[in-house]
C-alpha cells in the first residue's frame, strides 16, 4: 500500500511557471503552480523534465527552496556548460510549462520534531534546501537554535541575501567569501576548514539543558536524540571536506546529513 502511494506521487505532472525572480547574476527562483501538489518536507527535491519540439527530453533534480506549506519554488544556478540550467535561468518565463515529479527524499530532511540545535553548512547553491529548512523552522515557530555557515564566491553570489539578513531570533548566519570580498569585509575569506568549523559549529556534545528533541530521531534508526544536527549541502568536494571536519570535531556520523551536488555544484 505504501509502495503504491509513493509511486502515485512519482508520476510526472505538468507545472506552470507563475513567476521567475533573479536572485543573483547566476541564480533564479522559479515559482510553480502544480495542480495536485501533495506538499513537501523541508530539504526534499523534485525532478523536473523538459521536452523540446523535436521530442528530446532532459531531466534534472532541483532542491525545493520553499517551506512546507508554501507553493513549490525552486532556485536554479546557471552552469555555463549546462543544457537545462541556462534555459531555466534565462529563457523561461511566467506561463511556461515544465514537468515535475516529487517531492523526493527521506534522508536529507528536517522536521521540527527532529530537534537540534541545527548546524546548516552551505556551499554555493547548496544553500537552497537549507533555506527551506530555515523557512520551515520560522513558519512553524520552532524554538530550535539554528546556525548557517554559508560559503560563496563573493557577496554578489550570496543567494537570499536580504532574507538571511533579516532572520528571527535563534538563527545566526556566518558567511565565508572565498573569491572576492567587498571593501571593509571583516568576515571569513577562505574555504571552510577545520579551524573555521571549530569556531562556528555547535559543540558536538549535547548541552545539559538540551533542545527539545521531540518524538523521533532524524533517521528513525535509534541514533541518540541529543546533540546538534548538521546538514551539509553543496559541491561534492565541499561536502566531503566539511562532513569529515564535523566528524573530526566529534559529531556522530549519523547526525551529519549530506547532499552532494557533483563537481559543478548543481
Amino acid at each position, binding site marked *: 500500500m505504501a509502495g503504491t502511494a509513493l509511486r502515485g506521487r512519482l508520476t510526472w505532472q505538468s507545472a506552470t511557471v507563475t513567476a521567475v525572480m533573479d536572485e543573483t547574476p547566476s541564480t533564479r527562483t522559479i515559482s510553480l503552480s502544480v495542480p495536485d501538489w501533495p506538499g513537501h518536507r523541508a530539504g526534499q527535491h523534485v525532478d523536473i523534465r*523538459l*521536452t523540446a519540439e523535436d521530442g528530446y527530453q532532459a531531466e534534472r533534480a532541483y532542491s525545493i527552496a520553499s517551506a512546507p506549506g508554501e507553493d513549490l519554488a525552486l532556485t536554479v544556478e546557471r552552469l555555463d556548460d549546462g*543544457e537545462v540550467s541556462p*534555459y531555466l535561468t534565462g529563457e523561461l518565463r511566467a506561463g*511556461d510549462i515544465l514537468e515535475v515529479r516529487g517531492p523526493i527524499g527521506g534522508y536529507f530532511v528536517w522536521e521540527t520534531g527532529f530537534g537540534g540545535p541545527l548546524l546548516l553548512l552551505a556551499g554555493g547553491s547548496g544553500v537552497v534546501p537549507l533555506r527551506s529548512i530555515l523557512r520551515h523552522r520560522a513558519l512553524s515557530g520552532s524554538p530550535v537554535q539554528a546556525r548557517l555557515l554559508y560559503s560563496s564566491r563573493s557577496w554578489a553570489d550570496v543567494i537570499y541575501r536580504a532574507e538571511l539578513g533579516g532572520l528571527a531570533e535563534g538563527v545566526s548566519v556566518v558567511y565565508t567569501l572565498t573569491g572576492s570580498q567587498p571593501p571593509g569585509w571583516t568576515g571569513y575569506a577562505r574555504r571552510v576548514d577545520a579551524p573555521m568549523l571549530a569556531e562556528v559549529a555547535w559543540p558536538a556534545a549535547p548541552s545539559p539543558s538540551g533542545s527539545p528533541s521531540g518524538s523521533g530521531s532524524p533517521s528513525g534508526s535509534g541514533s541518540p536524540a541529543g546533540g546538534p544536527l548538521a546538514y551539509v549541502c553543496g559541491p561534492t568536494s565541499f561536502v566531503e571536506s566539511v562532513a569529515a571536519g564535523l566528524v573530526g570535531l566529534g559529531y556522530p556520523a549519523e547526525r551529519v546529513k549530506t547532499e552532494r551536488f557533483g563537481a559543478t555544484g548543481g
Partner: protein
Amino acid sequence: MSPISRGFHRKRIQAPADRVPPGQYVTGDFPVLSAGPTPHTALERWSFSITGGRETRSWTWEEFRALPAETLTTDIHCVTRWSKLDTRWEGVSLDVLLGAVSYDARYALAFSDGGYTTNLPVGDLLGGRAWVAFGYGGAPLGAEHGGPARLLVPHLYFWKSAKWVRGLRLRATDEPGFWENYGYHSYGDPWREQRYAGD
C-alpha cells in the same frame, strides 16, 4: 504526451550530415562521463599488458613511450548521442602493440584501472583503427578523460574507448564487458546505430 517546454532545445553545433551518424548531435564540449572515481596510477607503477597470446607482453610507461607514436584527428561518437568532430590525439597504434605478440585469438577484452572492461574483435584493433592514446588536444591526456592513457577506437561508440586502460586479454570467444553485460551492443557501430544488443 509530455507538454513541450517553449523555447527549450538541445545545445548543438551545425555539422555536415555525412560527419554525423544517425541519431547523434554535434557538441563543442567534451563531457566527462565516468562509471567510477578517477584512478591516479603513478607512472612508475603503470604498465600495459597483452595476455592470452603465446606469451604475455607488458610495457612500462618508459617502454610504452619509446614506441613509435602517431598524431591523429578524428571524430568521436558517444552512445548517449553526442558527437565531437576533429578531436586531436596522440598515441601508439594497436598495430604496434599487437605486432609484438604472437596470438591467434579473435577477441579482446580491454581492462582498465578501477575495473572497467569492454570487448572488441581483435580485427577492429588493427589496420590503423585503434590506439592507446596518451595525448589529447596537443597536451598530455588529463586524468578525467582517461589519462595517463586510454584506448581510442573512434570507429565504434566511445564506450569502447576504455579510459585508464591497462591492457588487453586476448580470447577465443567474445566476453561482454561492463556495459555490454547490461545490454549495450557487443560491437557498437555508430553508423549502423548499434547502441543496444539486438540493434
